[in-house]
């Protein structure tokens, strides 16, 4: 229970940190804190393989990518975020998020799911267990994820190709504005 409390607080701090940090770099670091906290939760929840995957994929790959982009994009730029310009955005967002999150939390806490009291099955959540599933009946899901990653690779190629034609949409937009 105590461990849960501490971890929860860490996770929440990480989360809140993401959205309040002024610098994107700090946000990324806070997100790593959050992710790692979640990874620990996974271990608690007997999902060892997932915890590893979480750390490797998220903290290892994704966040590195994020940091990389952050440095790429913020270099030489004004990284001070301007104040809120959309009227009522923050307060509405806050109220809505509290309503939604609060509601979900209350529901989630007050109505726990049915619990199967028997001991855990063998290999539950570990590498073998996961492998049995993913390379067994659920292989097709894995294949789909692979296809998505492939798509992402293609996409990155597409998106960062030098433009072949001079881009005219900007001109059109100006025309539309006038």
């Amino acid at each position, binding site marked *: 229970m105590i461990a849960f409390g501490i971890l929860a607080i860490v996770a929440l701090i990480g989360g809140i940190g993401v959205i309040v940090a002024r610098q994107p770099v700090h946000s990324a670091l806070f997100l790593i804190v959050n992710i790692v906290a979640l990874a620990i939760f996974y271990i608690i929840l007997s999902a060892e393989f997932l915890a590893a995957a979480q750390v490797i994929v998220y903290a290892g790959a994704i966040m590195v990518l994020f940091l990389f982009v952050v440095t790429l994009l913020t270099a030489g730029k004004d990284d001070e975020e301007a104040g809120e310009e959309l009227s009522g955005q923050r307060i509405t967002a806050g109220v809505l998020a509290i309503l939604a999150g609060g509601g979900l939390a209350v529901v989630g806490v007050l*109505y726990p*799911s049915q619990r199967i009291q028997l001991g855990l099955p063998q290999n539950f959540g570990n590498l073998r267990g996961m492998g049995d599933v993913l390379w067994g009946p659920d292989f097709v899901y894995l294949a789909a994820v692979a296809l*998505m990653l492939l798509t992402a690779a293609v996409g990155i190629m*597409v998106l960062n190709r030098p*433009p072949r034609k001079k*881009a*005219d949409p900007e001109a059109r937009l100006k025309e539309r504005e006038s």
Partner: protein
Amino acid sequence: MAFALWPEYTIVLGIFATMLAIMIGSRERTIVGYWLALAALVASAIVTTVDWSSRVLPVSLFHQGVTVDAFSLVVDGLVLLAAVGALLIGWNDRRYGTDFPILLLVALLGMMVLGMANNFIVLFLGIELLSLPLYILAASHSPGVSGEAGLKYLLLGAFSSGILLFGLALLYGSSGTMVFTQLDPATMILPLAGAGLALTVVGLVFKLGIVPFHMWVPDVYEGSPMPVTTYMAFGTKVGAAAILLRFLFFGFSLSVDWWGPAIGYLAVLTMIVGNLLALAQKDLKRLLAYSGIANAGYVLVGIASHNMSGARALLFYLLVYGLAILAAFAILTFVAGERDSVSLNDLTGLVYRSPWLAAFLTIAMLSLAGIPLTGGFVGKFYLLQAAIYAGQPGLAIGLVVGAMVGLAAYVRPLQRAFAKPSGSESIEPIRWPIAGAIVLIVCVAGTIGLGVYPGPVVHIVNHSAAFYWLK
């Protein structure tokens, strides 16, 4: 029954073949990718047809992860049509890159998966397979408006996927299963199920473009390259509607009173707001985007009425909507030429530049508006029937009120097209690229055909959406 998934397998093969061809091919031979993709689509269509005509009972595969039945096969057919249409419309325009066919096929795979998904994982996979390539395609043209479109789509897509996932998680928690058909309202933990259902529905109707989750639609449609917009306008809606129908009809068939009315309200709101906003548009892509929103509302009527007619009407309506929207976008592509958008002014005097184009535009717009002798009317008629069978006159009234408002929006371009040019507009005759012309002619013929003699297609959808537990 390993044959059941052959349409999908064909597409997967097509993806790899296209990818390989493009990787090895030189710049001049990128056309090969298009041809290969087209071949895959046609092959898949043939397999789908064969499958549909030989199948009697639904099959469940991957531990009930997917259900292949007549319904999913019709969805396959519809999305294949969308893909072929988009591919041909973008055929002559290499600005969008050689990778267009690959991404198109991946998204197609997502749509097909959505058509047959029967558990949460497949649902999510389908949604993401569908979305990821479209994010890329939307942004693929330029960092400007196209990039903006992609970015907006991406951020909101990620946001809504988060909501969807959380909803699915809660549903999982409330029932202990991920398979739609095993969801049992009697044993579910109710508040958990309710919250999960709400979030899941949000995630799904976001893709469909239902008010108030529709805001991305016009921006993304306007900013995206024309063939991509076409594809999104038709294919995405088919996929989203198919999964929403299957999710609600298979998973929550016994608890209609939980979700039915809410879907109904959303439908009415969407039909009216979508058409109303279409009225104010000057850019045709935007106009069609709002029309797409409104039509999503019509589609939602088929779901909200929750009966067999509704499911059938939904399939039928998706087809007629798709034909009309494909035709409209084909025309837009022709008119736009080198540019990437068409405003109302660009249409002025179209009838003098290209009478046939004006005639086809008329047919497409009238079908969207639901005027008889076009497919759109029969579709709306079927939906109305479903709504009234369901004893929901409110839905019916909403449908006709929306249609009324929408009509004014659809005839405005027509008035422009038939007006005398004032002199400042371009009077050059319009070139008809052959691939696009094929799409246009087929779609117009289909629209008229479905309006004049809808019998066979009604027969097909009636046999495809025959869920025995519905009225």
